[in-house]
Structure formats: structure tokens, C-alpha cells
């Protein structure tokens, strides 16, 4: 059965939702599912914007067929050729053999690489090209490295609709609701939107900034991303988040504590730290055990908070592997400009603190390490409890200065 929604006159959402997929990109957990958005424009010509993941292809084909209502499909605009959107191209080609694919040169190259026979069926566009499909005029704007090199966004100058590809997308299935004002985004969606952005697009902040700059010149009324809700108001909220994330500026002044504990001693120390912070009035605290928190959540929270405390045991003379993995993800996603406190633990040759500091200094950018470090031998005790006080003080001091 088809399941579509109207976005505005002439434009329909023809995508679908997937709750069965456990790991997005086979790495990030998506307990709230995910939507793959596709949009169909009915003008003098019919134009489909992007396709969907293979997993919901049948639903998608039913939707397209329903909206077309017997008309042929004239154009398929591919803004982003990653397979969660491009996988169903071949099915569209089979069913609508007269279709012309409009995309960038790099995108068409990727279609060939993924094995789609698109020869003689493509029209290459580049930055600033426009095309009139009847009433609607679409301008194509390149969006390289947001978050793939071939990506572009399409802008309908007639109705002010931005087809934004993966920009402004989110994890989470739509489950009937299509628009941002049909959900409580700040309560139910922001965490997944952040987790999506930071883990998928996070590394490419400068390119997102470049795209935001281009977008600021457009008169936008609708943002139609490839995942998550369609935005039709409250753009300031969303753009502010994107601006902060892409400049690697924290959203909130607070402390994220990420700890690696084998037998609970490091855990106990961070509980002491958290309690002392709260006692001094700093209650904006998020505390995570790296061993049982998926790294995509850790990354998302690291982008959110201004201060990070890394507490790790020493393991095989190194950083605890799960903590190390978290650090590697931070580096890979270009995270920077955080103030970091260090808690080191080790029972015979503590190394994790100095190694974490070295990693932050050598491998990452503008990670400012607080001078007050907590060095534990096995467990926190009377001898080093004052180090926790010093760390608390340092955190609070550095917040005042910021």
C-alpha cells in the first residue's frame, strides 16, 4: 500500500521508514529507526529527487507509482549518490526507461562504480546551473564533502524549497509525522539529529560552513533533507545548531565525563568528581561508561559539551582500548576546541593519563588540557582526594574565563 505525504502543492514525500535496521552504515545504532526521504515534483515534467535504500525499495516504488498516477517519470535528480539514497536507481531506470538522471560529474562516476547502467541517460550539472521543469525552476548548488565529494543540493526558486541532501538530516523514523512542527524536535529529535550530524558529517565542518554561507543567500521556505523531518519554520534553531557543530563550538557549558573502569574504582572516582561538581553548582553533567555506551553517543555528547573529563585505567601499558577507540573517533571526526580534564588510573605503571594527554596534544586540534590532573593508583584515597577538588576548581575556573 502506498504511503505518501504532500509537502506543498505539486510536491510529495515518497520515501519510507526502516525500523528493522540495527546499525546505520553498519556502525551506528538506530533504536528509533531511520527514514529515507525521496520527493516527487509534478510539473509540466515529472521530477524525482533522490531514491531510497534498497531495504524500503518496494514501498518507495509503490509511492512513486501512486503519485505519478499514470504519468511517465521524466527526470531523476540525484543530489547524493551514497547507496542509502542511490540504491534504487536501477529499479527506477527499469520502470521508467525514458527518465533522464540529473547529477554532478562525480556522482555519475560513482553510479558507474556501483554498477548502474546509466549510459546515455544522464545530464551533468555543475555549480549554479538551473533547469525549468514548467512552473518550477531548480538551481543546482554543489555541496562537496557534505559529506561525500559528489554531493549537491537543489533549490526550487519558485517555492523556496531546498533539497538539502544529507545536510539537516537526522536518525529516527518519521512514523507518520513529516514536518518539524509536527514533532517536539528539541525534546524528541535533537539528540538523534546531533548524533547523525556529528558522526556522519562531523569531520567536514569547514565544508558545512561553506554550504551554510551559500544557503544564507537563498530565500528558503522549506528544507527537505534525505533523513528525518522536513523543516518549514524555526530555521534559526536548526541553523544555530549547524553553525556551532560545524565550527566545533560547544552547545552548552557543562561537563561530559567519559570513563573507562575495569572493577569500579575509576567509576567511583568520577562519581566523586560529579558529586563535587554538582555540589559547587555545576549540574550540567553527562556521565558515560565508555565500555557500554556506543561511541556514536559519546561523540555526539562530546560535540555538545564545553568540558570533557577523560578518566581511564591503564591497560597493557596503554590507554584502555575502548577509551582509545573513542579518542580515535574524536580525532577522525575532527573534534576540537574542548577543555579537557584528565583522570589517570593504574595499579603498577600508570600510563593512561600521559598517553591521553599526548594524544590530545599531538593528534587533535586546540584541545586545552587542564593543569590539575588526578593520578590514582588503583583507587581514590585520602592522599589524592584533594586532586579531585583541584580538578573541580580548575573546571569551574576555566568556565569563568570562557
Amino acid at each position, binding site marked *: 500500500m502506498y504511503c505518501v505525504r504532500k509537502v506543498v502543492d505539486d510536491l510529495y514525500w515518497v520515501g519510507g521508514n526502516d525500523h528493522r535496521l540495527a546499525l546505520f552504515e553498519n556502525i551506528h545504532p538506530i533504536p528509533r529507526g531511520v527514514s529515507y526521504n525521496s520527493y516527487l515534483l509534478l510539473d509540466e515534467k515529472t521530477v524525482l529527487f533522490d531514491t531510497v535504500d534498497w531495504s524500503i525499495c518496494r514501498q518507495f516504488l509503490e509511492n512513486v507509482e501512486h503519485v505519478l498516477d499514470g504519468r511517465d517519470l521524466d527526470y531523476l535528480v540525484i543530489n547524493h549518490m551514497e547507496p542509502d539514497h542511490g540504491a534504487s536507481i536501477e529499479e527506477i531506470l527499469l520502470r521508467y526507461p525514458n527518465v533522464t538522471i540529473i547529477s554532478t560529474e562525480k556522482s555519475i562516476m560513482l553510479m558507474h562504480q556501483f554498477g548502474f547502467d546509466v549510459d546515455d541517460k544522464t545530464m551533468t550539472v555543475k555549480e549554479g546551473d538551473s533547469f525549468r521543469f514548467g512552473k518550477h525552476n531548480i538551481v543546482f548548488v554543489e555541496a562537496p564533502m557534505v559529506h561525500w565529494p559528489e554531493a549537491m543540493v537543489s533549490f526550487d526558486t519558485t517555492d523556496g524549497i531546498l533539497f538539502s541532501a544529507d545536510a539537516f538530516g537526522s536518525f529516527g523514523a518519521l512514523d507518520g509525522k513529516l514536518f518539524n512542527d509536527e514533532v517536539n524536535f528539541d525534546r524528541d529529535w535533537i539528540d538523534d539529529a546531533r548524533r547523525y550530524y556529528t558522526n556522519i558529517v562531523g569531520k567536514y565542518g569547514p565544508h558545512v560552513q561553506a554550504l551554510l554561507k551559500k544557503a544564507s543567500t537563498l530565500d528558503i521556505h522549506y528544507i527537505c533533507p534525505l533523513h528525518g523531518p522536513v523543516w518549514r519554520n524555526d530555521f534559526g534553531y536548526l541553523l544555530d545548531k549547524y553553525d556551532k557543530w560545524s565550527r566545533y563550538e560547544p552547545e552548552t557549558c557543562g561537563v561530559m565525563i567519559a570513563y573507562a573502569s575495569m572493577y569500579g574504582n575509576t567509576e567511583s572516582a568520577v562519581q566523586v568528581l560529579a558529586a563535587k561538581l554538582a555540589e559547587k553548582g555545576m549540574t550540567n553533567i553527562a556521565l558515560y561508561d565508555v565500555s557500554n555506551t556506543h561511541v556514536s553517543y559519546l561523540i555526539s555528547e562530546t560535540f555538545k559539551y564545553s568540558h570533557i573529563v577523560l578518566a581511564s585505567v591503564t591497560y597493557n601499558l596503554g590507554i584502555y582500548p575502548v577509551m582509545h577507540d573513542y579518542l580515535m573517533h574524536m580525532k577522525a571526526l575532527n573534534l576540537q576546541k574542548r577543555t579537557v580534564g584528565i583522570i589517570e588510573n593504574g595499579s603498577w605503571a600508570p600510563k593512561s593519563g600521559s598517553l591521553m594527554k599526548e594524544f590530545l596534544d599531538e593528534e587533535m586540534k586546540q584541545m*586545552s588540557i587542564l593543569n590539575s590532573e588526578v593520578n590514582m593508583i588503583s583507587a581514590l584515597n585520602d592522599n589524592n582526594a584533594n586532586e579531585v577538588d*583541584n580538578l573541580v576548581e580548575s573546571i569551574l575556573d*576555566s568556565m569563568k*574565563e570562557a
Partner: protein
Amino acid sequence: MLFQTTKKQEDLRKKVREFAESEVKPIAFLLDKENEFPSEAIAKFADMGMMGLPYPKEYGGAGADVLSYAIAVEELSRVDGGTGVILSAHVSLGSYPIFAFGNEEQKQKYLTPLAKGEKLGAFGLTEPNAGSDAGGTETTAVLEGDHYILNGGKIFITNAPVADTYVVFASTNPDAGTHGISAFIVEKGWEGFTFGDHYDKMGIRSSSTAELIFNNVKVPKENLLGKEGQGFKIAMATLDGGRIGIAAQALGIAQGAYEHALEYAKERIQFGKPIAQQQAISFKLADMATKLRCARFLVYSAAELKEAHEPYGMESAMAKQYTSDICLEVVNDALQIFGGSGYLKGMEVERAYRDAKICTIYEGTNEIQRVVIASHIIGKMKKDGKAKRKKTSITGERKKMIFRDGTPKEQVAKLVEALKKDGYDFSVGIAMDTPIVDAERVISAGKGIGAKENMKLIEEAAKALGAAIGSSRPVAETLKYVPLNRYVGMSGQKFSGNLYVACGISGAGQHLKGIKDATTIVAINNNPNAPIFKNADYGIVGDLMEILPLLAEALDTGVKQPAPPMKKMKRPFIKKEGPSYKRYICSGCGYEYDMEIGDPASDVPAGTTFDKLPEEWICPECGEEKENFIEIE
């Protein structure tokens, strides 16, 4: 191939030797003792046309060959090593860069008087943090309109402050390492160009050596030597040739010592015959002579190669390294042959023994010479993929907050306020004679304190601060204002307490290393470009005579209570700043071009700015063209 010098060259040797024997030898002991520059002798030497030996006659030179110049340095050094290096530094270092890299106007204006001997030249490359590694150059030159503004300083500069013309190296692009260094011709007497310490050296005491200080020195644009960024190349090419001069100096010092030892060995009789006829001594002399002959061939051959425009960089390094190494052996043996007599002041071999040592150190240590030689025979080592990040100041991350606004009194008030805010309690204090290592607070005097009676101001301020008194090294060692055990520095006492107030201390590296564990460093100095300010948390630029009484007044709380046991205070938290240069990201893959690393795969050296990348350069990861990179804002 007879390996012999020409008659013309030997005639020149005779002429220089006569000059050295008659004009320098009689005064050499005095020059050494008094640390005195032989101004008159050098003037006479200039009159003989010897100060521009290897330069063309059209520029006032003698048009002689490089070997003749080497012989001249050798002959002067044979009598006095210090006098030898005056000529070497003048010809090889002060004049050569202008001759080889200067334009016609620069040659006319500067080379001609240098070659005629009317002016004396010097070369300023070495800095506290840029010795063997010139990439650490911190002196900067910033282009402002039609001139550069030069700031910073140079140390251990031969011929300073006597010299008139200085070839000075400064960074015009501090992020580009050696590729950001440029060379400038700077004249003595220009506003802001002053001299620091005259060094009290172990040997070559007749040569003058001093520190150069540049404080907003205006250098006309036309005094840039070559192009911006060519400075390192100019310095290295100059040092290639300079090594021949130093090798010749070492050769001369060794030759002189050897001759004295030979003569003495023939005269000194023990066990009934001259010691020269005792095998122990004769073998020594045989070895000395062999080493000298070997060294001489190396030196002369390098000079001939240079003259013939053949590659000579490796050969001059070999000559410098070998000759200075055997020079130490020869002067050691010579002094040994003299026995106890040689150990006395006034003996030529004693002076030669001290003069010799510098030759293995300056113009590239012998370790660096081996690096040069090895790079020629093995090839350049591939650089590590990752260049080192720029070092922070010696004392670590500091606040560098300089109080500039308002009157001196207001500045002092702000300083006191900041210190109190950091938690300093000035109602308590420690005794002024607390050992530096145990002191919670120290106020130190540097040479900027001036006359000895000004130490009263330090004492008043120390009382008010509740601090012990320390000093820089010269204040204890040379001026003797405080006992030797009170100077702070790497070689003296280390301060690891909370508050350190440096008064009139410019901030030599060795001093800074002694205070790097201090929680808070305060600098008071009249030179805004003194390195101490880059190493301090708080600073006031001003006159000590004015600031110290104000400080004493502001902190005076009457009699101080005895301080509780010291509690080490936390170092202030300094937020890390991003790099000062632009970074660029590939729009084809997200690869980031970082000039600190360069692109080793395409032989782009570290330090190459993005705009200096060749047009045909492509992204090493995905092949995207240079124009498809975006700048990170």
C-alpha cells in the same frame, strides 16, 4: 699535480707573517689579558689592502684567490687566533653574503667599504633558540610600507659591537620555519639597534663578541638581501665558505703552537739531551707535523675548489671539522711538551690551547659538520612525516598579560590586583635570604638594575612582596651585587615556588630554564621586546627606578607575618589557540593540507604555505586540483 702553493701565494704569506710578527705578536698577550680588540693593527692591515682579499678590485677588493685569503687567516692565527677570526668573520661572513647575493646598489654601498677595510663586517644568525637549528629563528622582520621592522636579538656575534655592517637573519614568515627566513643588511647606529653583553670568553679574547638587540629597528626595504624567504639558503651558502676561514684559523693556531713546541723541544735539555731527541717527544712532534700537513691539504684544497667554482660544501666541512679536531690535539701536545712552563699565563701555547677550542664549536659545530658531510655521501635523510609542532615559550604556556594602560602607578595597581586575585597573600612573607630553592617568592635583579645602589630598590620591593632576593647570572657573577649562590638559572639555583618577579632581566634561555616551574612569572623591563615578556604571566614595560618604588608602596602592609609552609599553587589554565596560518581542505576527500607537515609524497617540504604550492600540485589522497581546496575559517 705537485700540491704546492704558487709563488704569489707564498709572497702574500710572507707579507702577512711579517705584519703579524711585528704588529700583533708584541701585543697579543695584552689583548688576551685585557679582552681588547686590536683596532690599530686591523686598521694597518686594512691599509695593506688585506681586508677584501678575495673580492674583485672593482668593489675595492684585492682580486686575490680564496686560497690567498685562507693563507692570510692562517698566518694571523699562527700568531693570535683572535686576530685571525676578525679577518675570517669580516671576509667570509660579513662581506660574502653581500658579494654573492647583493644587487649592484647593495654591493656599491656596502661591499666596497667592507672590501677596502674602511668598514668592518659581521654576521648575525645565532639566537638563544636557534643555534645549530636555524629553523628556530625568532627574530622577526615585518614589512611596513617601505621598510621592515626588525625585532629580536642575536647572540655570540663575532666582531660585534666593533663592526659597522651586519648581515642579519630574521623571519619574515614565522610559520614557514627555515623557508620564512630572510637576510638583511643592517647598519650600526640605526635607532633601536643596540648591543648587549660583551662576552667574557675563554679564548680568542682579542676578537670582540657581543649580543645584538633589535627593538623596532627600521630596515629600508632595499636592504633585503636576495628575496624574502631566501635567508636560510644565503646563510647556508655563506657558512659553506666561512668554514674555510675557520679551518684556516684552526690550522694557524695549531701551526703556531707546533712551531713553539718544536723550538722549545730542541732547547729544553733533560737526561743530558734535548727532549726533542727523546723518542716520546719526537714521536709527538712527528704526529703533530703529519696532522698539520694533512689538515693543510684539506683546507687549501677546499679553497681551490671554491675558487674554481667546483662544489666544495662537503670538502669545506671536512676541512673545518678535521682541522679544528686536530688543532685541539696539536695544542694539547704542544702544551704537554712545554710541561709546567706551558701552563703559565703569557705563554703562547697556553693562549693557543684556549683559543683552539672555539674552532670545533662556531660556524657549525663539528657535529653539524659531520651532518653536512654525511648528507653529501649518504644523501639527505627523508624527513619524518610529521613535523614537530612549534615550541611554546621556554617557561611553558604563560598568560603574557602586559599592563600597558594608564600611568605606571595604575599599571602597578593592576598587577597587584591580578596577583591578589590569583591568591597571593602579601600580608605574609619569607626572609630575604631564604635559599632560592626553598623560597615561595623571589624577586630577582638583572643587569637592568644598573648601579649597585639601586639594589636598595630591590630590597624594598622584596620586603613589600615578602620575597627572597635572587638575580640573573651577570649580576652575581660579574657585578657581584649578590652572592654567587643567589643567581637563578639552569646553571645556578632553580626556582620552583609560586611567584617570581624578574626585574631588568631580559630573559636569556639559561635563566628562563631555571624558572620554568614557577607558578607565576612577573616581568618588569624597559625593553618591550625582551624575551622575558613572552615567558611571563604578567608584565610592565617601564623603568625599574620608577616601577619598583611604586610596587613596594602598593604592597607595603607593614611588618609581614611569617609565611605558612609553602603550598604550591596551581599553574594558570591557558586555552590553546589555533595555528596562525591558514589551513586548507580538499573538496574531493576532506584531506587537510597542513604546512607544518607539507606533502612528503610530492617532495613538498614542511613549512611550504598553501599559496606556495606549485600550481600543478594535486591532493595526495584523491588527486583533486589545488583550486578545489577551501580555506578553513
